[in-house]
């Protein structure tokens, strides 16, 4: 529970408590403005009743033909607001808009293969692994399980335009592609 509202350019002044986190990157303002200037309806913010920013999602619509889909570029929730289903709510909106406004076939996202908590969360939301993308993330320099650290799962969830669930497959974890092959 929280206030769900649109992401605005000036939110960059107050997103520090979300971004001061190892897993969350602070990009140049142009990165956020680039998304807002094209897909403002796929970007949203969760705010606490007292007005603190709790998390946000940045998304886009992309792909050709039957690959036309909504994509979750960044989703982040501040540590003190985790386990409150905030990500679930923001994803719900992004899926709804991808389905209704953009008429996409599916929504997808990338997640580090080591990030078990997130993978479980997405699976709970109806996502499944479509393929494993090698060396998608630059190394974080952590050493342990570096392969899983660098590789990403591309996870997908079909939308109403794909009733036959053609955009997903059951053996996705075994399909390996290199980072150059994905957009």
């Amino acid at each position, binding site marked *: *529970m929280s206030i769900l509202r649109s992401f605005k350019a000036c939110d960059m002044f107050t997103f520090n408590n979300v971004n001061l986190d190892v897993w969350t990157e602070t990009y140049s303002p142009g990165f956020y403005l680039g998304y807002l200037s094209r897909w403002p309806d796929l970007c949203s913010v969760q705010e606490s009743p007292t007005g603190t920013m709790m998390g946000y999602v940045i998304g886009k619509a992309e792909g050709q033909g039957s690959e036309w889909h909504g994509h979750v570029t960044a989703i982040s929730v501040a540590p003190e607001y985790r386990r409150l289903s905030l990500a679930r709510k923001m994803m719900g909106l992004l899926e709804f808009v991808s389905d209704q406004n953009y008429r996409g076939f599916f929504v997808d996202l990338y997640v580090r293969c080591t990030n078990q908590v997130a993978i479980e969360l997405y699976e709970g939301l109806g996502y499944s692994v479509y393929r494993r993308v090698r060396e998608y993330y630059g190394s974080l320099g952590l050493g342990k399980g570096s392969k899983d650290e660098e590789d990403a799962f591309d996870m997908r969830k079909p939308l109403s335009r794909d009733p036959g669930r053609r955009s997903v497959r059951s053996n996705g974890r075994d399909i390996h592609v290199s980072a150059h092959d994905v957009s």
Partner: protein
Amino acid sequence: MSQALERLVRPIYDALDNGSPKSALVACNKVLKKHPNNELVKALKALALIRSQKVEESLNVCDEVLAGKPTDEAVLGAMQHVLRGLGRHTDAVTMYEEAWKKDPGNEELGAQAFLANIRAGHWKAAQQARQLATKLSKVFKREHYLYWSVMSAVLQANASSTPENMRKLLYQLAHRLISSSPTPSFQHAERFHLHLTILRELGLQDDALKLLGNEIGQYICLTSLSCNEIRREILSDKGLTVEEGSRAEKLIEGGDRNWLEFVAVLEAVFAPRPEEESFSTADEVARVRQLLEEVTTKDGSSDRSGPLALLDLEKRCRTHNFATGRMIALLKEYFEKIGSKACCYEDLVPYVQLEGEELSEWTAYLQGLASSYSPLEDLQRLINCHKLLRYNLSSDAITVESETALASTYSQQYLEALPLGKGLPDTELQPADDLAILSGHAFVNLWTLTKDETYLWNAVSILEYGVSRSRPSYRMRLMLIRIYRLLGAPQLALEHYRLMQIKQVQHDTLSHFALSRSAPFSLASTGDLTYMSEHIEASNIYVTNITDTSEYTVRAFTQEKYSQIPEFIKFENQVECSLQRNIAKMEYLRMRLGFDVVSAEVVDMELIDFKFIFDRDHFDNRDFNPLPNYQPRQSPTLNEQTLLFGKSENLGWLMSFMKIYVRALQDASDLDDSVEDKLLIGDRPQPTKPHERPLKERLCERTEEEMADLTDFELSYVHYADALANWLGPHHDHVRPHPSVVLAEAAKLSEAKTGQKFKGIDIPPPPANGNGKKEEDAPPVTEPPSELLAFFDEMHARFGKLRDAHAITEALAIAQIMQEAFVLFMCQTLRFKQNSVVKIHKLGNLVASFKPVKAKMVEVLKEVGTDLGRMSEKEGNAPRRKEFIDGCKHLDHDFILNVAKRFSDARHDMLAGYGKGIPRILGLYPN
């Protein structure tokens, strides 16, 4: 472009793209030898020159290309980058407009002319943009051009310089335009948003409601949060709180858990209603309460909206004098349910401002809870319980004894609970972190109560221990940054600041933690430029903002994302006119003056910059929220407690120092406004509002409001600086050379540098008698004002006390301000160093009176330098470390020893460095 030409220019583009402007330049010159009149290559050369920092040479090439009135798109594209690099947005507009005039059938040129105005971004440009868009829409009959003109009218209306009556007219115009659109706005969510904005602004809420009421309007609000936001605003304008409440109720029943819907329901309960006989507020309260209870039961622990809304309803009942009495019961229920989540404390703060019996009952409840660490949920519950109890501590309950006991409880429980997070990877926060943070709070509070530094050592120890276990805990780092600054160990503060890896726009919002009032911490005088480079690093964001952000506004136009455009412009403007930016600039200047010898060049450059800033709006984008605060509500916040000298650097601070420096630099400089106008490259930033009185007058005004932001020693410095400027200002004004002389000199210099004639500036003929002033106008020479030496005496005495008390940070600040006062004196007397000036204007007596003043300043400063050196001897040694360790017994000895060593060494280096720096600065001004 012909293939032959393509082959020639490709390497130039490649070199520019690869960031090697020098080889691009070589390539350009090569092609120009064969094709000396090729416009594209010339334009690229201008670009390569800018990127190689050769601005003056670039100007010549740039003007040459512009004079040819280019229409070729490649040339225009290159020139647009050139002009942007030079800050000449207005010229870019003219260039595209001229090009379109020459080739009116070319739609792309028309669109580019429009967008060039958007990049230029001032209200006059918005007006021009509107006219261009109207023309585009007439000529090319595309609907989005019509919307461009609508949006431009709105932008023009919103510009701060647009008068109120004009504003209304512009919105009416926008309304007329949008109504003339052949297809209705609701075919497109973004156009619909723009339409609603205009209707709302014109007070046509009823029309807006009609649009919102139809099926498409409702659908758009479902998928566009920004349209839904404006819908809420329109309903609230119309006072339709009750209707919005019933709408929200349905959404909640359907499973929506957006808190805004709950707020809508709660607002409706006590909203004024038309006379309804059957309506009773008490019944309504009961009905809504039941609804919320049902939600609570249904959601269980999966969502906290229901129980939080019940608390909010209770609170509202109290303000409306409805019999209640359920607050404590609800609070307890909330705590039972949500107490194991970190957000519980923040959620409850608005509802626990209790008094009397209620407070005792609530406190007793919390105190009665079992303290257990396992499972993790219990640990979180314990932490929330501590925070809530602490929040309501009354001022008479906060004593040295009670806080000491709390601090040790928190630390002890922290150490006991730490093993719970043992298996976590070091990228994760530790679940026990907040206990260390609470302990830090109690120690800081103890320091506030007693001013005994040992408490801060304790805070440092527990927090250092905390971050060693929980590396990503930026909240502990922020506390450490603040405390190390208080303790005079800024190098350690900077280390933690760097570990937070501040990036991009965070440099604007967070750098204040490390850089505010940092002049006393700079060792620039010894050649250590750490702080200065930190400032430079933080300032990059302003450069990228000004070059990049307007590009995205342009993109939002081409993508027709109208809802974003005012937000982008607001963002750009707030970064450009950031208060932090200018505070940091001022600190940087203060550091620079302890490093660079003051020369005419330094003076001129800084003057131009600071004059711009002086008349601007300032936006405070600083984010203080990441610093935690768990101090009792009766006490000052942690932020207030840990500010250096108890004062934040606010607008008043900035304006006070700006007045000192703009005045001093203006006195010392030969540039007056007429000269500056002529020499300046690029557009002059527009003042937000026209000022009724001249700058010179406004610089001499000091307001109480501004002075309230200053520490007392800064205040003394202001009086000193004013006395100095009042004394020497009239002599500067009399002696300053005539503008024509200054311009002629500048032209000569520029010619020598570029080998080309100084263009576009007519130099007025010099007056016959040199500076155009009569001898009898000369101000009388007076004795140095007593304030100058009085300031040094006062500060010196104060420094002595601080030295004896070993109060390091304050001693450094006093030393710094004396040093700054000395440099300001040198800056103000710089002009009178030239013998010819003294001779012509018969200023021998004046100049002679400088000597004893300077001698006294030098004597005092030398002594201060030596004393700082002596103070440093007390640090960085075994007895000091032992003292530190004895003061912090509760943690592991080896760990504390290390903290003590680093801490004391840092203080030693700071004091010794500053002490050594002072004679070096004095050495910069031997005569």
